[in-house]
């Protein structure tokens, strides 16, 4: 895979050779995350979040499997079984808080990973499929997170399920029957809870499968890099192990510090208090809001308030799904030949406006919908669509990008002689520091 100079796997012991001859699993690992995967030498810390996402997927699967041993998917018993985990199961509080906050941190990591991809145009050739598979993972994550949030059967679980499945009733004619079919009833109840639990247990393994495809497709062209310039020679790369295992290793420790600080000292900070009230179909909460990681989409949904050809609700649902679906077409919307945002002065500005715009949408999605909040979220939603569908194609057409470095190596050397260059770049042994 990837580059010609990738070092092939060499068994170090007779046992390893015996094993490798029969099942080349060590060879696969060596080529995927070992010394056999050459990686651009200039990656910055934005490139650490893919590995972190994998770590959080693992945390979620492990804590989730143990939680499922104690959880009881019953409309009468689910809420109390969660409290049983919190009070009577050994270390149960830690498992549950690790799982609930793990979901939040999984999304934080994935959002940084996605915005890294947007800034460095990881969606451009030859990496379109990596990007699309990533979006599939993201959609699966959203479905999994939503169904997981329903399981404690608190007020927000119940009413969240009510609102989200209500999207389907916006579809003309067949919408309402589809909604009832999906829920297994007219309102969320035992049938809905049991199937959500079943799917919530299944989906992470589907995600893991798509993650394998995501990484497989990544290893064909190899990782992108902050200059966006293709790898040309061996000098442009370093072996994944030990260089990037060491970098990912310490950074994972650092990020887990943040995660554990929340897990142990503010475990409910990212949740909603209403979910500590048992589900009650007769009492609607004052403000139904989803988990924080869905708030921007919630704002998009609520921004459409006028029936124009279609009902406003249908506009909102189409826009909400469209806001993610359009990302599949980015490679064709943004035709600039330059990948990295560092060399695109106009694109760079609009990228940061987009980041602010998404934060504004998140804020608007979580606020009480006063007329001012609704107006702001309408403007922010308009910018979101305009950014991807109108502004990006225009920038690609009119922007004059800055000159690119001739190679990754040239971007690492800041005009110094090769004699003073880092490991592997000097013709002779390094002489002295700059």
């Amino acid at each position, binding site marked *: 895979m990837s580059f010609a100079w990738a070092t092939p796997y060499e068994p170090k012991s007779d046992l390893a050779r015996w094993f490798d001859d029969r099942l080349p699993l060590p060879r696969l690992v060596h080529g995927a995350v070992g010394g056999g995967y050459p990686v651009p030498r200039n990656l910055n810390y934005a490139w650490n979040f893919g590995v972190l996402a994998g770590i959080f997927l693992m945390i979620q699967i492990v804590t989730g499997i143990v939680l499922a041993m104690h959880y009881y998917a019953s409309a009468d018993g689910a809420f109390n079984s969660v*409290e049983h985990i919190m*009070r009577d199961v050994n270390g149960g509080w830690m498992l549950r808080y690790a799982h609930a906050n793990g979901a939040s941190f999984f999304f934080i990591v994935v959002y940084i990973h996605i915005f890294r991809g947007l800034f460095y145009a990881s969606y451009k050739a030859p990496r379109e499929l990596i990007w699309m598979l990533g979006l599939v993972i993201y959609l699966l994550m959203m479905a999994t997170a939503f169904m997981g949030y329903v399981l404690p059967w608190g007020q927000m679980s119940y009413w969240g399920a009510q609102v989200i499945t209500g999207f389907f009733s916006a579809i003309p004619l067949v919408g309402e029957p589809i909604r009832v079919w999906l829920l297994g009833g007219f309102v969320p109840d035992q049938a809905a809870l049991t199937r959500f639990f079943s799917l919530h247990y299944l989906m992470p393994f589907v995600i893991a499968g798509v993650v394998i495809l995501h990484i497989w497709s990544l290893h064909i062209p190899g990782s992108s890099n902050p200059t966006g310039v293709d790898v040309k020679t061996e000098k442009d790369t370093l072996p994944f192990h030990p260089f990037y295992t*060491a970098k990912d*290793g310490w950074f994972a420790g650092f990020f887990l*510090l943040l995660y554990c600080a929340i897990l*142990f000292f503010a475990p409910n900070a990212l949740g909603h*208090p209403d979910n500590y009230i048992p589900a009650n179909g007769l009492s609607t909460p004052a403000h139904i809001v989803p988990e924080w990681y869905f708030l921007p989409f919630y704002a998009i949904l609520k921004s459409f308030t006028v029936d124009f050809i279609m009902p406003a609700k249908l506009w909102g649902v189409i826009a909400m799904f469209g806001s993610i679906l359009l990302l599949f077409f980015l490679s064709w*919307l943004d035709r600039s030949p330059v990948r990295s945002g560092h060399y695109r002065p106009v694109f760079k500005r609009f990228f940061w406006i987009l980041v602010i715009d998404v934060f504004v949408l998140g804020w608007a999605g979580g606020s009480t919908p006063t007329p001012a909040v609704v107006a702001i979220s309408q403007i922010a939603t308009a910018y979101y669509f305009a950014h*991807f569908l109108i502004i990006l194609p225009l920038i690609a057409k009119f922007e004059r990008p800055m000159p690119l470095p001739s190679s990754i190596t040239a971007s690492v050397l800041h005009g110094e002689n090769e004699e003073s260059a880092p490991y592997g770049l000097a013709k002779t042994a390094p002489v002295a520091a700059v």
Partner: protein
Amino acid sequence: MIRKIGPIVGLGFVFVLFLSLFSGLSAYFQAPPEATAEEEFHKHPKKLHLASDGPLGHFDRQQLQRGFQVYKEVCAACHGLKLVAFRDLAALGYEEPEIKAIANQWLTEVPSVNPDTGEVASRKAVPSDRFPSPYANDTAARAANNNAYPPDLSLMTKARHNGPAYVHSLLTGYEAQQPAELLKKFPAAKTSPGLYYNPYFANLNIAMPPPITSDGQVTYADGTMATVDQMSADVSAFLTWTAEPKLENRHRWGLVVLTFLLFATILGYLSYRNIWASAKRKVAPVGPLDPANMARREEAKDERGIAG
């Protein structure tokens, strides 16, 4: 193809959004929404400091015992605590015989079945029982309380924003008279009979009569002055424990885990520096935080951005 359809779709969404924006704004200016009494008179909870606050917080067991006494003598008449068992009181510092006595003398009995006849019966509670509900069922609870259901208190401090402070404020926040200003501005918001004005409650009028009314309503065994403020702070502390009984455990483990991770991260960082020492430009002959080197790194960063 996509480049042709994309902008059309984009313009379509933008157009409908501006229609929505315009109709929202014109509706706002034609008929501005009227202020409500809740918006103007609802108060945020008062500050409350408990020993369990903060990352190193732990429970004040004396206070929890006092709070439990307030719950037992005041709140338990109407509010259940169904997620907590009598045996859990050991965490408050009660000895086993005391817990047995508390369970045995609890004001309601545990529903059961007469072993001889199979008829509905009740028995004295034992430590393994959860606190029995004061009412036989929800309908009975509503019937006894003017159709207002007294909620279970087990999770109350986690089920409200800023829970402990909210409980404390609610208990001490009753006002005998509605503010004259409120009645003048919103005559329709007059508290109806059977409700009580409390600005800390979401809709200002609560069905619960003031439960803690006078100093000395409870006689504390440890001699603490039982002021209204003290009693409601104590019961808030107790309900913080019922909602999060493993709080101290959590804080202790948090310190252990963070210390371990910090140590592992520092070691990981040092080995990262070590492994990359040969692969990075040597900009640090003296040390990475040498000001000259930092300036040089910044310069290098600027260059990379432009010329490369």
